């Protein structure tokens, strides 16, 4: 499916961010094409979440450039990212527990009546439609999301990301809280979104999942990109070597973090 030709959907060039002297991300370059799933792999603290948070506007980068559909983008806050069609499913889900599903789905982008007031009924109607596709058994629309199960909360977070026709989707550990059946559902969803031409960054610890879903793999270690490889060109052992040793196998394009 990889569309290697043409302009990438996202291109991050030499992006860096330090927290009080610690280089969380150092000169990372990563790209993503339409209809492609790129998996970001690495240990905890390798910089995966930080990279995607820079793209989603949660963190402001210290250096580097970001191009979206070929045009240089300033992403200073989450609003900028959303305006560019970048949606994120955070590992923590980032739901406001005290308000209901519809309120969370539309948080920051509420539908309003012609008088400028919140149109809760219209929002609930759309929430029912999108949740109906993701999780047909879900009916607890009147309750604060704190009352929902882990899987239901996860589907609310996913629904929020796809509700606004995202072109670029960031999924940070989307299946960490899910059972096998729900994980399979998320996998099916990823394939469906991919077939619609959406580009997806997938952060996961599950190597099997990654080989199943991703077109390319980008491994990070200590804030550096070790290397990027097409899933078809490398094996699981190669990838583990990249994660643990920072060793870039043949068939992968080495990054600044690769050991010689």
């Amino acid at each position: 499916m990889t569309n290697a030709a043409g302009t990438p959907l996202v291109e991050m060039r030499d992006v860096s961010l330090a927290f009080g002297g610690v280089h969380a991300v150092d000169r990372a370059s990563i790209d993503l094409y339409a209809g492609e799933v790129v998996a970001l792999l690495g240990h905890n603290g390798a910089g995966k979440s930080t990279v995607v948070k820079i793209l989603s506007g949660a963190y402001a980068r210290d250096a580097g450039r970001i191009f979206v559909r070929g045009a240089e983008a300033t992403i200073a806050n989450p609003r900028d990212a959303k305006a560019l069609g970048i949606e994120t499913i955070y590992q923590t889900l980032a739901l406001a527990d005290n308000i209901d599903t519809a309120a969370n789905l539309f948080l920051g982008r509420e539908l309003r009546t012609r008088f400028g007031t919140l149109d809760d009924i219209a929002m609930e109607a759309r929430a029912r439609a999108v949740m109906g596709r993701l999780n047909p058994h879900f009916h607890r629309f009147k309750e604060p999301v704190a009352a929902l199960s882990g899987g239901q909360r996860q589907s609310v977070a996913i629904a929020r990301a796809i509700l606004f026709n995202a072109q670029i989707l960031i999924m940070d550990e989307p299946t960490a809280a899910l059972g096998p059946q729900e994980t399979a559902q998320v996998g099916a969803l990823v394939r469906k979104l991919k077939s619609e031409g959406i580009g997806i960054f997938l952060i996961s610890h599950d190597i099997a999942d990654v080989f199943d879903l991703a077109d390319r793999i980008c491994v990070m270690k200590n804030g550096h990109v070790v290397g990027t490889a097409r899933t078809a060109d490398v094996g699981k052992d190669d990838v583990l070597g990249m994660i643990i040793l920072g060793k870039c196998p043949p068939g992968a394009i080495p990054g600044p973090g690769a050991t010689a």
Partner: protein
Amino acid sequence: MERGASTGLAMKQSLPPPLARFLTATELDTRLLGMIGALLLIWIGFHLASGGLFLTPRNLWNLSVQSAPVAIMATGMVLVIVTRNIDLSVGSMLGFLGMIMGVVQTDLLPQLLGYDCPAIWMLALAAGLVLGAALGALQGFIIAYLGIPSFIATLGGLLVWRGGAWWVTHGQTVAPLDATFRLMGGGPEGAIGATWSWVVGALACAAVVFLLMHGRARRRTFAFTPRPLAAEIFIGGVACALILVAVAVANAYPWPIGSVRRYAQAQGMALPDGGLFIAHGVAIPVLIAIGVGVVVTFLATRTRFGRYVYAIGGNPEAAELAGIDTRAVILKVFMLMGILAAISGAISIARLNAATNSEGTLDELLVIAATVIGGTSLAGGTGSVAGAMLGAVLMQSLQSGMVLLGVDTPLQSIVVGIVLVIAVGLDALYRRRRE
């Protein structure tokens, strides 16, 4: 089509099923109903203990007027506490803004416009509102943009504005106030009389019916099952009955004989033998408080601003990641609090017919207590304006009930303190059971 049916709460399952189903169908907040029940118990208790003095038109009317300033500020305190902040400065700000409004109407404006200018009360009030908004915004800026914790920033405000209140006139009391301004404080002239009270009551009932019908129509547009008609009629009926009873009570409280005599004299008519029954009707400060309650409820539940206030309280990081400008929201919350302190200040000085530099001392604690008794969680995220206003009435009921019973002031404080702790304890228990 069993959509709305999953809202059953654990608490209601102990009730007989038909009643429980009916309560669920009304979608009323059981917590709020519990508070109303507690309030009624307190009222009946005081009524019996005082030998029938509490539930009289006179006492209830006074209770409503006395509750108004705290109830008004409690509506804003709900939003402050929902965002996980606190405002300790409201009592001092009330005092400072009261002094400013006093000086503006007795000293500043008469020099510019002459004593009888009818615009004086409006300009004085406007000065208070604008300054209240500015001071509130300043505190909000310090909290939201400079990152000073609200507890500290507003503790500073508590000291600064109280000192400022003294500074305005070097401690001198400002009195008497503009005659029109004084109407905001209540009293025989500061109430709208029987006829207008019925008009207001009828309009309020019409508004209730309109809102219920509008809600039904909206739900039908999106093919949602509406509430059962019986539940809607029940809610509308109870609300209208309460409104009309309140109006009837206010209209049953006659002017004192002195005011009636002055009125008769002014009208050039002879006072009939049996006296003249002139009803107070709903007091202006109470109308202001109800208006504020409606506006702040609207802000909290029907606007983006309110939605963001609750989202920030529920999960500040999520609100930020959703693209909400959380700092601007916090600043606006404190600005609103400043405006409300100005309104309460106007009512307080109008009622006293004087602005003193100690006005509103310790009000911040009453306001916070009313808000918390009214179900706002200090952990943030939950709380309702109506609950906080009920909390203010509840606190005031305790106080004036104990005054009626002749309870010593120190003992009053002890009781209020204990009730506050018990009320919050019960609420915590209730929340835990629901989870």
